[in-house]
């Protein structure tokens, strides 16, 4: 076969790889190796994930009782603001692209590195600079505008550190732009011989669509934040109605990025899930071209629906009508994906390993999140549930139930490749189950709360909402345990885990045809691709005796 680069399984003598080639702090801080930069990102975003999670924990503890006893209104406003800003800008947006994407995109297309390795390192440093600014902002008083920075509150009234938070997000936005730029050029220009567009893994198509949003959307939030900072610092009137400005213009500019940003979070996750479902069903993905193009369609439609966040803000009813219809249209490519994944499962030889459990979790939770999104796209229903916990539950089903499930599934799926070690499968399955249960217990009651009328962003609530809030807080505790477990056993496995073979799942894809962990330049010889993506029928006919189960 053309897979001459496949090597025998791990020998007792450790091969030279990207982890052991150089040692020392500077070999990491000055690296241009996309795999090392991915690990730098992994550590950084994990740090911010736990900060954001800490805020979430405090929010849920405060909401355990109807009265404000743990914190008062001002502190509560800061908690939900910083929870949102940290989770969105410092965890979810970089999560899959900057960690798994950084690690895998060059390998999946058969390249030695991303097109611009130094720009890749620069993007991490920008992330760190933005992160330090954000930490400084939080430690010296924080910000209370809500993650959306709505004007004129943020520019004329809030007494908190709006400027610093805005600048932090401005800086971190450029790290996102540079990642997207690098991916697009790599996917266009760095593919190995024979790796045609139709043979690319769907993970790559998903990242391509994500990158398009990153490079076209992020600059708009950058300039919006520049205007907010300038207006607040110099008392300009660009958005302040008292001075002749238009607050709705801010909302348009803000959501022009921040709605597509949701697709920056979910599209890579969809790519991960596609890889996992094909591998653990041992089948070619159903409708490859439809799944590939639905990613592009989501990116394109995603830019045309932003004003559905503004239905009650006073936009024209005709504009609202158009944005409502377009928001329904986004459901079509999303449904194409869900149906194609389901069709891939059909008559597949399904293996219930931990990554697959996360993928199943993703399927169900994303579907609920997506369908409740249609409720919100419907003008009449949105009037009722706008700014309630229904919205909170909806977008957490997408961002946590969807994006984070995919991220964790991907981390498990590729952990043997990244670390060269196997994680403990039993614990991983248990963690997947805990996350799923904890997640639903946290967020399903919030659908009910929102539908009954509990508004978001209040630190106290009428006593009749308490039972559901207690359930939600209990669920958040379970969810927290579910998130801690993988961190513990991943760290454990780095030292005590069994060495991973090059292809523990017997998966398709170029990244599995090199060593675990891979050498610095990914492949010992430049790969030449002569097969279609997801050729599981061919793979399984070669290895009839082997069982792709680990642990």
């Amino acid at each position, binding site marked *: 076969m053309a897979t001459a680069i496949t090597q025998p399984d791990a020998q007792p003598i450790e091969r030279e790889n990207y982890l052991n080639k150089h040692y020392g702090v500077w070999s990491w801080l000055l690296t241009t190796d996309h795999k090392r930069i991915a690990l730098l990102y992994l550590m950084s975003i994990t740090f911010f994930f736990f900060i954001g999670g800490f805020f979430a924990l405090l929010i849920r503890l405060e909401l355990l009782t109807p009265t404000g006893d743990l914190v008062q209104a001002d502190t509560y406003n800061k908690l939900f603001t910083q929870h949102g800003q940290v989770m969105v800008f410092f965890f979810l947006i970089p999560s899959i692209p900057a960690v798994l994407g950084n690690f895998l995109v060059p390998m999946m297309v058969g390249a030695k590195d991303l097109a611009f390795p130094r720009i890749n390192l620069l993007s991490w440093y920008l992330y760190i600079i933005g992160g330090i600014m954000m930490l400084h902002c939080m430690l010296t008083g924080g910000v209370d505008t809500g993650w959306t920075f709505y004007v004129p509150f943020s520019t004329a009234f809030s007494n908190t550190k709006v400027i610093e938070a805005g600048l932090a997000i401005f800086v971190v936005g450029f790290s996102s732009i540079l990642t997207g730029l690098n991916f697009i050029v790599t996917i266009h220009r760095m593919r190995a011989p024979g790796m045609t567009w139709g043979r690319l893994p769907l993970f790559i198509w998903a990242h391509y669509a994500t990158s398009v949003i990153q490079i076209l959307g*992020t600059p708009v939030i950058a300039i919006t934040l520049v205007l907010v900072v300038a207006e607040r610092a110099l008392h300009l009137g660009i958005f302040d109605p008292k001075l002749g400005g238009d607050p709705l213009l801010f909302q348009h500019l803000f959501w022009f990025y921040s709605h597509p940003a949701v697709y920056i979070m979910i599209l890579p996750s969809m790519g991960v899930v596609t890889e996992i479902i094909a591998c653990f069903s041992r089948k070619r993905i159903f409708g490859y071209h439809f799944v590939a193009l639905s990613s592009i369609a989501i990116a394109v439609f995603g830019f045309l629906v932003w004003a559905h966040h503004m239905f009650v803000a006073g936009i024209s009813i005709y504009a609202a009508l158009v944005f409502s219809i377009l928001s329904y249209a986004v459901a079509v490519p999303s449904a194409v994906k869900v149906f194609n994944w389901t069709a891939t499962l059909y008559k597949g030889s399904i293996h219930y390993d931990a990554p697959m459990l996360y993928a199943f979790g993703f399927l169900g939770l994303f579907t609920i999140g997506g369908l409740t999104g249609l409720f919100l796209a419907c003008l009449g229903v949105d009037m009722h549930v706008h700014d309630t916990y229904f919205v909170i539950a909806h977008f957490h089903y997408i961002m946590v139930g969807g994006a984070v499930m995919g991220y964790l599934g991907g981390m498990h799926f590729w952990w043997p490749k990244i670390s060269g070690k196997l994680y403990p499968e039993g614990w991983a399955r248990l963690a997947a189950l805990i996350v799923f249960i904890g997640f639903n217990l946290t967020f399903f009651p919030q659908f009910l709360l929102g539908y009954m009328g509990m508004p978001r962003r209040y630190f106290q609530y009428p006593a009749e909402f308490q039972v559901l809030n207690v359930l939600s807080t209990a669920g958040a505790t379970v969810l927290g345990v579910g998130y801690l477990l993988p961190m513990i056993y991943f760290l454990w496995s780095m030292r005590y885990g069994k060495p991973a073979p090059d292809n523990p799942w017997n998966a398709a894809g170029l990244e599995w045809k090199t060593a675990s962990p891979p050498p610095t330049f990914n492949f010992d010889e430049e790969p030449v691709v002569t097969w279609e993506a997801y050729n599981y029928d061919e793979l399984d006919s070669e290895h009839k005796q082997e069982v792709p189960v680990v642990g």
Partner: protein
Amino acid sequence: MSDSTVAVQGETHNPALLHHFATEEQQRNASSFGMWIFLGTEVMFFGGLFCAYLIYRGWYFGDFAAASKSINAALGGTNTAVLICSSLTVVLAIWAAQTSRRALMLAMLVLTMLFGLAFLGIKGIEYRDKFVEHHVPGPSFSFEHEEIPSHPGEYANPRHAEIFFALYFIMTGLHALHMVVGLGIFSWLLWAAWKGRFTPEYHTPLEIGGLYWHFVDIVWIYLFPLLYLIDRHR
């Protein structure tokens, strides 16, 4: 281009070819494609500003026209000419590199930077004038009794004029910042050209630096009529 593929196979491949590219052509394509995509992000960056500007220009047309009349179109026009000349010198520098005219390449790079500095100098004079006239948004801003062009007896609303000046300073300020970055890039290009890095086969940095410079020029080509020429024809 055929000689470059030969060079890759031989021992004498270009030291500028980075390890992760297979051929010089791939590297060149990736570099210029990357710059084009970056320019796409820049279009979106300035696009948000242009969008805000155009909305208020439509809402407060008379006030904007009055405010626009107070900025110096002659200096703005001179700056437009300066930038167009600088784009020509960039192209000539690339042509000189392609045809091995080292002295011409260095001269054109120096000339480009001089044009860039001239632009910033003229811009500085304009800013100083606005400062003297109290047209800088802030506590000392004043735009009282300024007549709206072709509407005798009607005066511009100072609040709305302040929005014009706010956008004027942000837009031209960000453009000037891009010019400063461009000058930094061209200083490096000049140094590299002086060191003899650029040959007819390899001058990618000149090309992508030039792309950036042209883009910054084009932004100005849009800024000039939008900001300086509102309702001037009457």
